[in-house]
C-alpha cells in the first residue's frame, strides 16, 4: 500500500518537474529570481560558520570624531583571507558607508560607499567629510559575494567634526 503511494507521489513530482522544464525556460528563471535571489545561477555563495559574528570594534555607535577615522574590524567564529583565496570559513572585510546592504547574490560593488579590504586588512583609517555617517561591516567570500547566511555587523552612526 505504502509502496504504491510512494510511486504515485514520485510520478506526480516527476510530472510536475517535466511540465516546468517544458515551459518557457525564461519564465523559470524569472520565478527563481522572484522567490530567492540566491538561486540565480552562476555565483557561488560560500557558507558562513554557525555563530560567526562581525562587529565594528571602534569607533563606537554615536562617537564624535575629529580628523581621520580609524575603523577596527572584529570577526568572531571565522577567519580572514585575502580576496581570491577560497578557504572554508574565511572571508574578507567590506565597509559599507552611508548605504544599505547590497545584493546578496552578486559581488559587493566597489565604490565610495562600499570599500573592499581584499588584502586581508582588519582595520583602516580614512577621511570622512564632516557630518553624520553610517558604517556597517559585511564579510565577502573569495569572489566578494556575501556568505550564506550573510555575516554583517550592526549599523553604527558616527559624527565627524
Amino acid at each position: 500500500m505504502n509502496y504504491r503511494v510512494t510511486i504515485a507521489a514520485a510520478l506526480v513530482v516527476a510530472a510536475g518537474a517535466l511540465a516546468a522544464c517544458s515551459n518557457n525556460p525564461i519564465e523559470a528563471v524569472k520565478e527563481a529570481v522572484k522567490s530567492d535571489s540566491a538561486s540565480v545561477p552562476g555565483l557561488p555563495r560560500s557558507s558562513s560558520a554557525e555563530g560567526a559574528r562581525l562587529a565594528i570594534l571602534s569607533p563606537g555607535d554615536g562617537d564624535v570624531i575629529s580628523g581621520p577615522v580609524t575603523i577596527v574590524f572584529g570577526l568572531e567564529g571565522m577567519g580572514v583571507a585575502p580576496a581570491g583565496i577560497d578557504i572554508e570559513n574565511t572571508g574578507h572585510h567590506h565597509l559599507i558607508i552611508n548605504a544599505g546592504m547590497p545584493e546578496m547574490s552578486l559581488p559587493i560593488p566597489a565604490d565610495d560607499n562600499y570599500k573592499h579590504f581584499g588584502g586581508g586588512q582588519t582595520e583602516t583609517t580614512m577621511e570622512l567629510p564632516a557630518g553624520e555617517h553610517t558604517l556597517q561591516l559585511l564579510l565577502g567570500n573569495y569572489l566578494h559575494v556575501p556568505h550564506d547566511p550573510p555575516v554583517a555587523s550592526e549599523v553604527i552612526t558616527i559624527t565627524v567634526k
Partner: protein
Amino acid sequence: MIKTLFIAVISSLFVATSSMALDRSPSAEGAELYFISPKSGETISGPVTVIFGLKGMGVAPAGTDKENTGHHHLLINTGLPALDLPVPADDQHKHFGKGQTQTTIELPSGKHTLQLLLGNHIHVPHNPVVASDVIEITVK
C-alpha cells in the same frame, strides 16, 4: 691546489645550505601588531578574550603566500622564538592559521605575559619581525 679546491668545495656547500634556510617574507614598512584587548595590567575573571590588531598588513591563512600578509601567533609566558624557523606549536605558542583575528582561552589563575607575532605562509616570522609589545595580565 687540492687544498684550494677543498676550501672552494666546502665554502660553496656552506653557501648552498645557507640558501636552503627557510624563507622569511618581507614585512611592510610601518606594519604594527598590537592587542586590541586585553590591555596590559588588566585583571580578568574567567576565559580571556584576546583580540589581535594589525596595522599596515593583512591576514591570510597559513599556506597562503601573498605579499604583505601573515597569520597571527599568540605567545603565552614565553619569549620570541627563533626568527628563521617556523613558530613552534605548543601551549606557549598558539597558532591562528585559519586567519582568526581573536580567540578566547582559559588561562590558569595568576600572572601571564602575552605577545603577538605574525608568521608567513609557513609560520616563519617576517623580516623585519612583526611582533606586538609584551603585555601582562592577571587571571583571577
